[in-house]
């Protein structure tokens, strides 16, 4: 809970010199970046660049070997995933498996529930909460066009819908910052522009966003600011126009992945 005032003014999330190695492989090498809530931030880079590892470190799934993370001026480095989540950082996962035995409605209920789970069961508060969450779920699903699928088991959803369901579920927890891990992967090309619109809507509703994706045209379209990662390092950053024009980025990123 120690507040630090080192944070650059206005940054919601900052990482300072993050370093993580698996055995001899350095996955994340001295990564420092600032994330501002007023712009959609993207992180691009070839496979194995360390993007998902960086996400995992920020959300507590991996412990950094060194370096630190501050969220809202508080140090969150080394906290457990559930602690970071309760501070308002949500994330999606690359493979949108979700909760396969649940219907979409049920998985939305899990996401919004308060955390005093066992004691909540013994009071009437639980029931009132269910009604409240049900309304919130309706609203979100309606907006994402999933309202007809309320009673569909999550593992029976089509791939594209499953991606949206993943987004919907994480929105239920009303995060302040949402990290999207490859939201466009598996979404058919025709639906990508709609996905971009949805992501902009989410951002406009006041949720800070950071996106990892392979689809360069999608990222350059939706993001306001782009960091480029290669071999565990941030090698470039700037507006989508600057990134698109950078010869270094073309060489490293597109040379490997396209």
């Amino acid at each position: 809970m120690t507040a630090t005032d080192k944070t650059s003014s206005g940054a919601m999330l900052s990482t300072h010199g993050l370093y993580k190695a698996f055995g001899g492989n350095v996955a994340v090498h001295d990564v420092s970046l600032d994330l501002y809530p007023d712009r959609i931030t993207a992180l691009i880079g070839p496979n194995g660049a360390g993007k998902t590892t960086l996400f995992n470190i920020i959300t507590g799934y991996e412990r950094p070997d060194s370096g630190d993370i501050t969220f809202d001026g508080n140090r969150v480095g080394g906290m457990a995933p559930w602690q970071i989540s309760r501070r308002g950082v949500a994330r999606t996962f690359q493979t949108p498996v979700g909760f396969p035995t649940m219907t979409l409605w049920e998985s939305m209920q899990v996401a919004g529930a308060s955390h005093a789970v066992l004691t909540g069961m013994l009071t009437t508060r639980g029931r009132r909460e269910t009604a409240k969450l049900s309304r919130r779920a309706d609203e979100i699903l309606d907006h994402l066009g999933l309202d007809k699928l309320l009673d569909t088991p999550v593992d029976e959803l089509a791939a594209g819908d499953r991606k949206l369901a993943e987004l919907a579920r994480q929105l239920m927890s009303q995060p302040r910052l949402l990290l999207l891990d490859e939201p466009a992967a598996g979404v058919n090309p025709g639906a990508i522009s709609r996905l971009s619109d949805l992501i902009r809507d989410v951002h406009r509703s006041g949720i800070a966003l950071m996106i990892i994706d392979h689809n360069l045209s999608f990222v350059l379209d939706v993001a306001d600011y782009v960091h480029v990662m290669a071999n565990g390092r941030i090698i470039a950053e700037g507006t989508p126009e600057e990134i698109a024009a950078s010869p270094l980025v073309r060489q490293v990123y597109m040379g490997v992945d396209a």
Partner: protein
Amino acid sequence: MNTLAAISALGSPTFWMSLFMLIGIYAAVTMLLNVEAGWGGMWDLGIVGLLAIGSYTYTIVTNPPGEFDVVYSPGWPVWAGILAAMATTGIVAFLVGLPALRARREYFLIITFAFAEVFRQLAINLRDVTHGTVGFSSVARPFESFFEKDALRGVLLAVTWAAALLVYALTRRISRSGYGRALRAMRDNEPVALSLGIRVSWLRLQTFVLVGVAVGGVAPLYLWWLRYVAPSVFEPQFTFTAWTALVLGGIASRSGAVLGVGVLLLFTELVELIDVPPEFRNVHVAVHPLAIGLLLVLVLRFRPEGLLSERGTFGARARQTTALDGAGAAVASRLRRLSLRGDSGNEEAP
């Protein structure tokens, strides 16, 4: 003549009362196992160990002082014995859960199985406290001074079923609560559950202790049926029976545990009842586990999810039952649906 013997047993109320009491006890334990293993994904193969802790605690504190040659027999009343059994089992569940719950799936299964065996070995060897392999040949039962033998049996049957009903009500509450959904969420996908702020390790421990306390409460019922306590009662057989019933009835289904226990125990008790000539008795004994195995194979072949399934309990019904929980809510939701149907363009219902 053999047929006659079987028929006379079937006609005896004692046989049926005893069988139904056993079904009530197993149903309660299996429903609790379902909360832990079916919904929580914690494959507990040592539930009989918790039953043993509860049983021994109850017997030791309620036995009349001086009746058995043991170091501790305070002679508490029955109600105090039940509370002591629940408390002790809860504490033991907490202590076992701390290390065991760090492991997942088959590793958790092996650890819990080992703990149950350790408790049984302790019961055998701590002779000063547990009376060793002999155990205790009598158990304090409630209402003994109020009712005579046959009536008492009926009263205890009613108490057992009331307890089983209470456990059912508890599981029903769990299945419709955020707690129940959090359990199934962490079983389905632990990383995603964590990302939603669910403190998985704490939830697992809470559940393990909750189940422990409840099993401690069921233990006295089991003893009232058995009327003695000995280490042999707590062999793994009990756990396997509960698990078999759970799989038969449908793991993670709410009513499946009860149905599975009913089917399994009726089946096995009736097989036991068939009278065979002495020269075939060995075969008869061997047929018993074979028949259980066959039942299990048939169910898994033709209904892999069990007689009832998780989808039957939850699925689309989960939303409706939650909404219909209060009569007022039911009317409200119906009105809302009607109004929506008339005006499908505007779904911004309050």
